[in-house]
């Protein structure tokens, strides 16, 4: 077990290196530099750009720059960011928010996204499991159909529609919650609910299918035959097994929900990491793109590892890779 965890953790930096390299190549392929549009000509920005890890060429230099020279510049930037990160543990300065280091931005934005994500995740597991169990136990009845319709809406409606509807209903028509922003518990509710809806729906569907499958199995019949009350059969015996598919879905779901959804952050004005990530791409903020991509990847990989472990714990018959 320990060996398995260790091996996965050792893989982590290698995977991150590959992700970093691919991301960097992608950013470099499309032109432009983050200091474009400032009033001072590129010439005067060279020194300061270097502080931000970016190499700037004046239009004249760019004109006679060969392909090889361009990629030599990119290579220098690549090593610059990488060595700064590895040697000093420093992600550099953001060129979009010029007074902020990437670590500061992540320090401000990530906890907000994590908080919102954790809230949405708990909500979707609680509500999704409850709905799924009800739908599974009372299958093909009115409750099942209601849950199915709900799931259909939750899965198929895009977040920006759900968000807008929630806003209209609970911030305008019936002003229970503020429109957006961050800082008070009431500001967490609407984005949390919006973010949780698709996940709730998906978990509900998985739970229902799992329930239906398990309830027809032999050991459930045995449990019923020995006279256990229905609720105990479902919650004690069936639930544990029916929860497995949900568990495996939770891995990727946790990562994507925890890192927040850009759309939800945008609609509800949540200053989280999702928006920092998307905006960093449009403004070609090298340091911030790399920082957020690395954070996202780490979260994704760690979440998957935790799920693998939880899987093993829930159902010891499942062997972790490489275990005897």
């Amino acid at each position: 077990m320990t060996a398995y965890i260790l091996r996965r953790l050792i893989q982590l930096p290698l995977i991150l290196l590959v992700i970093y390299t691919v991301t960097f190549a992608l950013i470099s392929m499309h032109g432009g530099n983050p200091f474009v549009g400032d009033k001072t000509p590129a010439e005067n920005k060279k020194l300061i750009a270097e502080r931000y890890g970016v190499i700037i060429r004046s239009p004249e230099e760019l004109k006679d720059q060969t392909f090889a020279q361009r990629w030599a510049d990119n290579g220098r930037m690549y090593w610059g960011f990488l060595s700064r990160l590895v040697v000093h543990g420093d992600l550099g300065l953001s060129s979009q928010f010029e007074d902020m280091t990437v670590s500061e931005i992540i320090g401000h934005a990530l906890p907000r996204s994590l908080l919102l994500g954790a809230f949405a995740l708990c909500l979707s597991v609680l509500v999704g499991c409850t709905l799924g169990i009800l739908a599974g136990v009372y299958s093909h009845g009115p409750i099942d159909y209601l849950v199915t319709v709900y799931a259909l809406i939750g899965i198929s409606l895009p977040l920006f529609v759900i968000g807008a509807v929630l806003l209209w209903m609970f911030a305008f028509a019936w002003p229970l919650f503020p429109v957006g922003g961050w800082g008070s518990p009431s500001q967490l509710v609407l984005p949390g609910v919006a973010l949780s809806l698709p996940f709730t729906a998906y978990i509900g569907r998985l739970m229902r299918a799992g329930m239906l499958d398990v309830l027809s199995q032999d050991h459930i019949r045995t449990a019923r035959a020995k006279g256990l009350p229905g609720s105990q059969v479902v919650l004690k015996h069936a639930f544990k097994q029916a929860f497995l598919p949900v568990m495996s879905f939770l891995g990727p779901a946790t990562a994507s929900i925890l890192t927040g959804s850009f759309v939800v952050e945008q609609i509800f004005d949540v200053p989280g990491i999702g928006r920092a990530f998307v905006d960093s791409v449009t403004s070609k903020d090298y340091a911030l793109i790399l920082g957020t991509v690395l954070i996202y990847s780490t979260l994704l990989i760690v979440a998957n590892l935790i799920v693998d472990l939880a899987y093993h714990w829930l159902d010891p018959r499942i062997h972790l890779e490489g275990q005897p």
Partner: protein
Amino acid sequence: MYKFLVITALLVVLALVGVLALTSAQPRADVVLLNGAPVKNLDPARMSWMHDIRTAYGLWEGLLTTDPRTLAVIPGVAERYEISPDGRTYTFHLRADVRWSNGDPVVSGDFRFAWLRVLDPVNASDYYTYMTLIDGAEEYYARMKDYQAGRWGTADERAKFASPPPQPDAATVAIRCPDDRTLEVTLARPVAYFPELVAFATFLPLHAGSMQPFLEHPSNAPPYYATDWLKPPNLVSNGPFMLERWEFRRRLLLRRNPHYWDREHVPSQRIELRATEDPSTQFCIYQTGGADLLTTLPGDVSKELLRLKAQGERPDLHVFPVHGTYYYRLNCKQPPLDNVLVRRALASCVDRERIVTQITAGGQRAQRSFVTPGLFTTDASGRRVEYRPQEGPAFDPEAARRLLAEAGYPGGKGFPPMSLLFNTSKEHELIAQYVCNVWRKELGIDVRLEGLVLTVAGQRMDEHKFEIARSGWFTDYSDPNGFLEMFRSGDGNNDGQFDVPEYDRLLADAAAETDPAKRFAMLEQAEKILVDGQVGVIPVYQYVGQLLYRENITGIWDNPKQQIMLKGVGRK
């Protein structure tokens, strides 16, 4: 198992909400202002964005400052100043009772320190050219650049010098401090609008002592201040407010500076500058009472609000013209646009009225001049001298067709393919579509639309790789020069490579002219060349400022620079 899950989940949620509730227990600020995008840069030497400059005027105060009601330059830290008879030397006398937020007195050296910092190339100040108006500054900047390149530059850059250039002496810049309360500045030549520049953000003072701990000396770059000096509680400022909190992308919280000399005239104890980028979200927040003031309205909403205002509703909406022009740059060195007949044909075939009434429809004014109307100055006898903006060709498809035929493209035949570049936004795209459609219909030419993200579009303009490109320009000081300067040959913003010796000569002559009326006449001639004679640009409309603020908010005036001075903003 089930119970365990439920209990954990509930505990987690409770803990999260608890954390949030505890960390956010604060009273609402006196005024909450939706400040648009998050802070780009709060360093006065480097800032150039309007929302940052607005914040800076709340935190710092210059020798002179601006009256938001009239836009007149009024005394700030300096109680008075004198100008020498030749118009070149300004002597500022500081008030006796001005203090920094930590209690230290504000001295003339604080200004010299901040101004010299603008002239340090390592800070890449967007507005260092304002500082180079000071005698000796331009040379100091150039020598500083050489010194830095020779010492910290790449091998190529170092190879340019036979021996490393010495560090230039700051004493060669004509900023002198005879004593703590006197600052003497000599300009290289008289500049009529210098007082207005002194009131601008680039000329704000800085507290050197509190910045010292953050000075970094990297081995491969000139020394610079790490950005932590700007973060509370490190930042020491001398304006009406001090920075209490800076929460990334969420807000800045300003608290009244107890040491500010004019604190009796600061009505608000706390002002919150909330960062919200999306205009629709901003409007929703304002509409549901989450904020008191809004500076950017979403396009569709502003049309509806204007309609309501016309019916006497929405007294909180304020729409007023500002000194900014929406225009199309023409790349004058790129065939076929190197032919003035082609440029003139295109300019004669833009129906600006339709654009402002049908597309933007937010109160904008169709404009054929590049300089906005309403700029003026006063001459020695105190008489007001108005600048008369010069107009380019009017909408006349018939004339446009003739010009195009004369240029060798009758009916658009043989016209090479070209594109109109714009940074992606719904409104820019609609306007561009309309303009290109009219060109196709009336002139028979095909101009492709090319929408790119701002950074990429900007780089293409910098590299002159475009034919026609959308742009907007707001002047930073109320003088026509602020518009016309950027079309001087060789200017860093002259992306369209407009290169007319006569134009350059007129600008140079105007700069040396001390009589305001004669100076304006020269600038008018220059503008005539720009928009009509040589058609280096196609102006489209004059921007409007749109503000929404509640009727109980005081201290805000509609002015053509959209200047909001936080000092006077309060609640009735």
